[in-house]
């Protein structure tokens, strides 16, 4: 795909995502029913969980691209991993900021060192670490390889985050959708949540394409500058 094609694709996905975000906000504030026990603060769920899902998607995508980069040494795969990691960092930051806002009302504290929260913080540091490792080596090729390893190891955090609430006694609620006996959410809440996941995924892929176009243009500009000198 050319950079112009990526920008067109990015525009379509981003516009769809932003329109979806408006609809999602309308659903959250005016359509979905209020949860009986937690009240209005439970509405944070509809942005918190989709942000978490998107950060998992980002690290998974980055890990696959990184593994393929280590195998094929194709710079396009390294660029794809970098762009996914940047998106993952944005959405992981959202998880770590919206979660405490919910937790303060639901649990009475912004933060507690329980397994899921700690492992999610670790995921945020993995995203951040990827970018730091990539930029901290003198040889860029070495930086790319080291960062690829960080992304692959980082993806191993995802199953632990998901299962930590099952394995350990924890304040964080257990999964209500991704569980063996099916979702236990009421229909309107499930529909809002799934729509949120779709909207955040569209935004992630839309911005990812724009970000990839930037990296592709930068690589081409660097190549031209090198060949001119």
């Amino acid at each position, binding site marked *: 795909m050319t950079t112009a094609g990526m920008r067109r694709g990015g525009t379509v996905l*981003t516009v769809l995502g932003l329109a979806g*975000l408006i609809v999602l*906000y309308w659903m*959250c504030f005016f359509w979905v029913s209020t949860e009986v026990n937690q*009240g*209005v*603060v439970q*509405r*944070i769920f509809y*942005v*918190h969980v989709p*942000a978490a899902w998107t950060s998992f998607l980002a690290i998974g995508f980055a890990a696959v691209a990184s593994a393929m980069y280590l195998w094929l040494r194709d710079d396009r795969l390294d660029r794809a991993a970098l762009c996914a990691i*940047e*998106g993952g960092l*944005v959405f992981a*930051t*959202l998880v770590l*900021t*919206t979660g405490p*806002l*919910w937790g*303060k*009302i639901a649990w009475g504290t912004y933060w507690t060192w329980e397994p899921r929260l700690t492992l999610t913080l670790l995921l945020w540091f993995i995203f951040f670490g990827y970018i730091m490792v990539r930029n901290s080596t003198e040889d860029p090729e070495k930086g790319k390889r080291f960062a690829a390893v960080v992304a692959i190891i980082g993806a191993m955090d995802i199953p632990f985050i998901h299962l930590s609430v099952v394995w350990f006694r924890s304040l964080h609620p257990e999964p209500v959708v991704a569980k063996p006996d099916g979702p236990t959410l009421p229909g309107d809440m499930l529909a809002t949540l799934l729509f949120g996941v779709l909207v955040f995924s569209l*935004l992630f892929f839309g*911005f990812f394409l*724009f*970000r990839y*176009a*930037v990296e592709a*243009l*930068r690589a081409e*500009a660097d190549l031209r500058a090198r060949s001119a000198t």
Partner: protein
Amino acid sequence: MIMKNTVFRSLILSLAGLVVTAAVTLAQEASGVPQANRLAEQNLRPYWHVFAAYSLVIIMIGGWAISIARRLRAIEDRWVD
């Protein structure tokens, strides 16, 4: 004289009202009975948290969009040069 008495009586009544209000407020404070403004604060707090969370989503996504747009413009300027 009548006018003077009326003013004096009004003044006494107002002062008495103030004393009673102050006494009730102090008694509420001492007994721990929640006051109206504190109750309102407690009831509105979840709404503020929801508002902050939904605002953060817009700020983060908007910030990322602006950051990508600036980098894209910088690289396009480099191409023009």
